[in-house]
């Protein structure tokens, strides 16, 4: 779990815009979907970075960019110091081996006409140097064993497996090339509650066994907290707050993070009277028309004039010099506000329009 200081992945200024066009013969650009709009983060070796956010915040686009499934509009992704967004041909292929993806939906991410053995072994067809031909069958059986499936299942088809088992197959495929980084995009959200824990435990065990670094993308905040060392909260294409797991959950300073955390239903009926709920008004704006200045201002209860004109930088707010609140937060009026009740009844102050003071 513990992260070393040397980053394996450095992302800076990452941007992905999808053009919106009108007309067939004379295509005219009329705007852009700004799916990812300036994202920076680093990932340490053996570390898990959790990325949370609501649908449409750009977290899945980030995953695709990291795996080179999409080319960024701007920015760089450095893998061990080398910018992989500029690579092509053989060099790109070599890098791709090291960054593999696990997808959300185990029902559509496996080819129904291929056997499990062929699915898990397919990466070797593309990267034949990873395993000599005669050895592949054995490797596939080994991989199935590693993810907790019976190696005798190699000749079965995906429809013969449950959702949880299919996700294990997807994970085995992701591991086939012995990658150093795994990007998991909502790997458990399609699974039943009782099966989610099994898959999370598997991912945890594999990380220790193969010294993997994870980028774990999800919307379930309690699962992200369990598995992550550091967390980035995304809103409309940008990371608005990032820090170590306990900094984000216990000492959030960005109003969006606070609202997000307070909205999560807590499985404790005793807590329901003591909880402070920040209800945001309205929906997330469209990524084709991102508000000026701070992109959260249209739903923020603290928004003032400054927020409409000046984009807040993702940095440690000047008011926090040290302590757990001193982590990157893109808000002009950042203040600490504890929204997750510690243990049992008590603490959080119920405030209306103007939350203030550390809890």
């Amino acid at each position, binding site marked *: 779990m513990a992260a070393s200081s040397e980053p394996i992945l450095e992302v800076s200024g990452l941007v992905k815009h999808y053009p919106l066009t009108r007309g067939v013969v004379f295509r005219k650009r009329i705007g852009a979907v700004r799916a990812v709009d300036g994202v920076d983060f680093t990932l340490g070796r053996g570390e898990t970075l959790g990325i949370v956010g609501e649908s449409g915040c750009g977290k899945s686009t980030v995953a695709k960019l990291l795996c080179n499934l999409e080319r960024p509009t701007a920015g760089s992704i450095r893998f061990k110091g080398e910018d992989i967004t500029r690579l092509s041909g053989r060099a790109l292929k070599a890098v791709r081996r090291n960054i593999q993806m696990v997808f959300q939906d185990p029902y559509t991410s496996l080819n129904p006409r291929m056997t499990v053995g062929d699915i898990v072994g397919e990466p070797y067809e593309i990267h034949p140097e990873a395993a000599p031909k005669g050895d592949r069958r054995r490797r596939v059986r080994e991989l199935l064993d590693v993810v907790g499936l019976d190696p005798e299942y190699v000749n079965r088809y995906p429809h013969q497996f449950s959702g949880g088992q299919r996700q294990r197959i997807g994970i085995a495929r992701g591991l086939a090339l012995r990658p150093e980084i795994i990007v998991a995009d909502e790997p458990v959200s399609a699974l039943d509650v009782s099966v989610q*824990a*099994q898959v999370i435990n598997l991912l945890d065990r594999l990380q220790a066994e193969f010294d993997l670094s994870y980028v774990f993308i999800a919307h379930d905040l*309690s699962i992200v907290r369990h598995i992550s060392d550091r967390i980035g909260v995304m809103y409309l294409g940008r990371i608005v707050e990032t820090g170590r797991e306990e900094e984000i959950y216990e000492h959030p300073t960005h109003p969006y993070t606070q609202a997000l955390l307070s909205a999560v*239903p807590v*499985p404790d009926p005793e807590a*329901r009277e003591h909880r402070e709920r920040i209800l945001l008004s309205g*929906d997330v704006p469209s990524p084709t028309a991102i508000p000026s200045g701070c992109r959260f201002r249209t739903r923020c209860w603290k928004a003032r004039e400054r927020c409409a004109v000046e984009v807040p930088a993702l940095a440690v707010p000047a008011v926090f010099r040290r302590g757990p609140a001193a982590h990157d937060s893109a808000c002009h009026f950042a203040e600490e506000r504890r929204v997750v009740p510690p243990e049992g009844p008590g603490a959080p102050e119920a405030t209306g329009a103007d939350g203030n003071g550390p809890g």
Partner: protein
Amino acid sequence: MLLDVRDLRVEFRTRDGISRAVNGVSCTVDAGETLAVLGESGSGKSVTAQAVMGILDMPPGRITGGEILFRGRDLLRMKEEERRRLRGAGMAMIFQDALSALNPVLSVGDQLGELFVVHRGMSRKAARAKAVDLMERVRIPGAAQRVRDYPHQFSGGMRQRIMIAMALALEPALVIADEPTTALDVTVQAQVMDLLAELRREYRMGLVLITHDLGVVADVADRIAVMYAGRIVESAPVRDIYKAPAHPYTRGLLDSIPRLDLKGRELYAIKGLPPNLSRIPPGCSFHPRCPMARDVCRTDVPPLYEVSGDRGSACHFWRECLDGGEQ
């Protein structure tokens, strides 16, 4: 007693044989009460709801036994015409996916107004005014203009509000909400759940909330019924169950939630998978996955034992489970 379901049984004919989706479910809902029905996919929670609403596809479905008493009258003995009049006015349902539950070629105003035209015999104009009224009640901004819009022009959260407005239009005594917020983002989910709870209090409706989310249950329910393989395995006031579950399945579900004090350690995971409903294990259907299973569990189906006045557990060893839960 608003709703009293007694020993309900539902089967489906499939290529795999007979799939027993609901195997003797009994539960009650009072006016003004919120009952949460918790279960994983295939536990029979949605089929139970559909049977109560009378919208089960038959065939392939078949109700093979039991009674569904609504205000003392058995729905299963009613004529279809009578049940149709009851739907909407007496009981209503909120579905998970508002986009596919709403008619895409009718404006939301027409769909909301239709209820008043059909059930209350109102004129189109009066019905339209009622529709605007309802949209304001569920806090859709600019209701008077948006009443002409079509479902696809609304966001997910707004569509779910329209579904709620439609369910509440005729002020039914009972509302069944089947995973009403599962498709929504957390911040929108909180808005919708709050609205639903507020309207429920205002109208004093009985609410049946079908969900798989233990967090949502803890937030809004008064009582909870946990379903597994077509049966209610535990039923209790919500506080009791979270404090000390009396069934190992409930306990497993609660234990598998990531908790702060257990970070960095392995999560508790219920082993195995939920059973195939055409091959439900003999005895207690949970025994192949249960850490407490003994010989008797493999042969004898546990009845719903009375744990206390308002609690029941379908586990032969509920006492042991209850003790273990208090550690």
